[in-house]
């Protein structure tokens, strides 16, 4: 730095000196040339005084007297000094003067033999009567004497601001470069933290170092940016894929009819699917991230969930059933499954809780249990009767003939009743398990209905009920399963007889409709069906809840079975009824043209 400052001073000094020298040269040249010419033009006689009196030359030379003036002499053409006026210490050297006229005017450098200084000598010819008489030679010191001394103060004054400026700029630059150095270090650290190889340390100026580092860093950043662009594109693609996969997984989870809840080991739910809301009647936001105490309204469920807080030992009871509302038919089953870490099958990170609405299953289970109870009661009742009547016949009491016949009739009737029930049960079971195969055959409708009428007529007469038959004369032939169809018709008839009052009439009628349709109707004048029960009469196990129905034994299977059979024959069964007036069941089905069937068969 100081070198630079000194160099600057030196350069400036040098320039100043050179300038001074040039100025000096110009000055002495003008003076020398002018003086020599002037003297050359002077008359020879005037030029050289005879005595040592003042002459033109001495006057001229004296005028010239300054520190640059070395000497002024006049020589003859042979070079002998005719006149000499020198400054102190200066001796004019002897030189050979040019003889050719073109070289008579000129200048050259000579060395002062006295002090060895370089001298610039200007010369010009002296003429006397048209011939060369000699030369006038005027010498000046080539180097300005005292020039440095003269300029030293100027130089000092110039050097000081130069030095100060240089120093100032140095510190300014240092101040700028120091943070740059730090920045450079930081860039290096940054490049290290980017995981790329560190920049090689550089030698040289701080700024250069910095610029190189900066360039390297920019390249680095550029390459990282490119890499990141690529990464971001692939990351975006991946995230799209991932979110798509997640959406797929979540939509799958939302489509599950069960409520799915994931709780962590602190019992706090981390996931809940959509179905959680209707089943638990709490929004998902209220559940996720909150302790079960905050949202779980049901004590049983809360207790179930809190079990998993106490660790894996409590994992045994993994299923409960609860009633979400008081006295309702709704039942929810709650199951818990441990969630193991995919990496470590021994690490448990939470539980998967499944809430399943099992109301239907519960109702079916209840209905099934009720059905079993009902059927067993229906089977036990005739069994009790059979037991008691057979005991009676065994002769624990003497019986009259009429009493004996009566007892046997009762036994016969009860056996029929049981057989009917068992048959219905078996048929229903066959239909429901799908093992029932219709054995379709060509059947004359008039014959089939006549047979059914004949069979049920006895039963009706036994109860004081009149059974009437109204058939169109020729209903034609229909392809159907004769046995199954009879079960349907018999059930409709026995149902009508059962719910008729003594003295009433049950009418079985049939007629063809347009479009190959046929209609069979069973009408009674019995207790009728309440309008709210009309839709339910075909339901399995359904029995109207009233005293008149309850007073009649039944198992709620007959109409259900009739409907199943008729639908298997692609028929439709409907009911018209008025409470207290009577009921009419109407069966409509397509009477498949026998001719077509036969031609197909052939």
């Amino acid at each position, binding site marked *: 730095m100081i070198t630079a400052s000194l160099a600057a001073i030196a350069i400036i000094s040098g320039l100043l000196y050179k300038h001074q020298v040039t100025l000096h040269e110009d000055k002495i040249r003008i003076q020398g040339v002018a003086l020599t010419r002037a003297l050359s033009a002077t008359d020879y006689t005037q030029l050289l005084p005879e005595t040592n009196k003042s002459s033109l030359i001495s006057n001229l030379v004296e005028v010239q007297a300054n520190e640059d003036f070395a000497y002024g002499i006049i020589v003859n053409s042979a070079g002998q000094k005719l006149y000499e006026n020198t400054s102190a210490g200066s001796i004019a050297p002897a030189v050979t003067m040019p003889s050719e006229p073109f070289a008579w005017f000129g200048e050259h450098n000579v060395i002062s033999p006295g002090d060895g200084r370089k001298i610039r000598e200007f010369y010009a010819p002296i003429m006397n009567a048209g011939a060369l008489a000699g030369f006038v030679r005027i010498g000046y010191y080539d180097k300005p004497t005292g020039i440095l001394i003269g300029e030293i103060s100027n130089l000092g004054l110039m050097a000081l601001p130069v030095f100060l400026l240089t120093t100032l700029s140095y510190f300014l630059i240092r101040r700028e470069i120091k943070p740059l150095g730090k920045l450079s270090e930081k860039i290096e650290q940054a490049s290290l933290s980017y995981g790329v190889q560190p920049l090689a340390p550089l030698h040289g100026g701080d700024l250069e170092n910095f610029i190189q580092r900066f360039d390297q860093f920019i390249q680095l950043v550029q390459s990282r940016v490119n890499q990141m662009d690529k990464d971001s594109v692939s990351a975006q693609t991946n995230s799209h894929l991932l979110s798509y996969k997640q959406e797929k997984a979540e939509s799958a989870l939302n489509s599950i009819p069960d409520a799915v809840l994931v709780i962590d080991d602190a019992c706090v739910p981390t996931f809940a699917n959509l179905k959680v809301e209707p089943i638990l009647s709490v929004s998902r936001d209220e559940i996720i991230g909150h302790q079960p105490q905050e949202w779980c309204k049901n004590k049983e469920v809360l207790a179930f969930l809190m079990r998993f807080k106490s660790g894996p030992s409590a994992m045994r009871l993994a299923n409960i059933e609860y009633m979400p509302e008081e006295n309702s038919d709704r039942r929810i089953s709650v199951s818990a499954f441990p969630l193991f870490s995919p990496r470590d099958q021994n690490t448990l990170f939470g539980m998967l809780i499944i809430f399943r609405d099992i109301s239907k299953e519960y109702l079916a289970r209840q209905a099934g249990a009720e059905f079993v109870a009902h059927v*067993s*009661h229906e089977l*036990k*009742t005739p*069994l*009790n*009767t059979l*037991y*008691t*009547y057979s*005991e*009676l016949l065994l002769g*624990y*009491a*003497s019986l009259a003939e009429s*009493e004996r016949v009566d*007892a046997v009739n*009762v036994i016969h009737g*009860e056996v029929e009743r049981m057989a009917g029930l068992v048959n219905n049960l078996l048929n229903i079971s066959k239909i429901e398990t799908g093992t029932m195969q219709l054995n379709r055959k060509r059947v004359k409708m008039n014959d089939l209905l006549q047979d059914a009428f004949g069979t049920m007529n006895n039963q009706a007469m036994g109860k004081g009920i009149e059974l009437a038959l109204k058939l169109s004369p020729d209903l034609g032939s229909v392809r159907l399963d004769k046995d199954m169809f009879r079960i349907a018709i018999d059930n409709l008839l026995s149902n009508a007889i059962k719910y008729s009052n003594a003295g009433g009439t049950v009418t079985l009628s049939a007629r063809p409709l347009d479009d190959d349709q046929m209609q069979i109707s069973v009408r009674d004048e019995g207790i009728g069906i309440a309008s709210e029960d009309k839709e339910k009469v075909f339901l399995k196990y359904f029995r109207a809840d009233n*005293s008149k129905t*309850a*007073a009649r*034994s039944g198992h709620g299977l007959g109409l259900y079975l009739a409907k199943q059979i008729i639908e298997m024959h692609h028929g439709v069964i409907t009911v018209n009824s008025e409470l207290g007036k009577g009921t009419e069941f109407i069966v409509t089905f397509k009477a498949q043209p026998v001719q077509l069937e036969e031609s197909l068969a052939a």
Partner: protein
Amino acid sequence: MKRILIADDEPHMTRVLKLYLERAGYTVETAPNGQVALDSIIKSAPDVVVTDIQMPVMTGQQMCLQLEELLPERTFPVFVMTSMTDREHREWTQKIKNLEFLEKPLSMRALTSKLDSYFRSEEITESENHA
């Protein structure tokens, strides 16, 4: 003559019980459900009530509970016909005094012997009371 009230919704059963018990020398009344039986009891108390449980309109259980309220001083017994499978539903019978069980299917011999032994013991207590 001892009067017996039989409540059963199954007409065959009431018929055969009536036939049998009348032969055995009892006066027999029948009712198709608990309500009819209860009305009859209030009108004129029988010596023994024999009742089924599952009946329409009013079950045997409802009838017994009504009897406890309406006739707290009742002395005649109620024989309830139950089957083995109904045993778990017998808690209510704890509240009814003078209640006995008749197992289904009902044997006529078992019924008559039960009635006979009941009336015999009653005669003894009565004669003891007179003495």
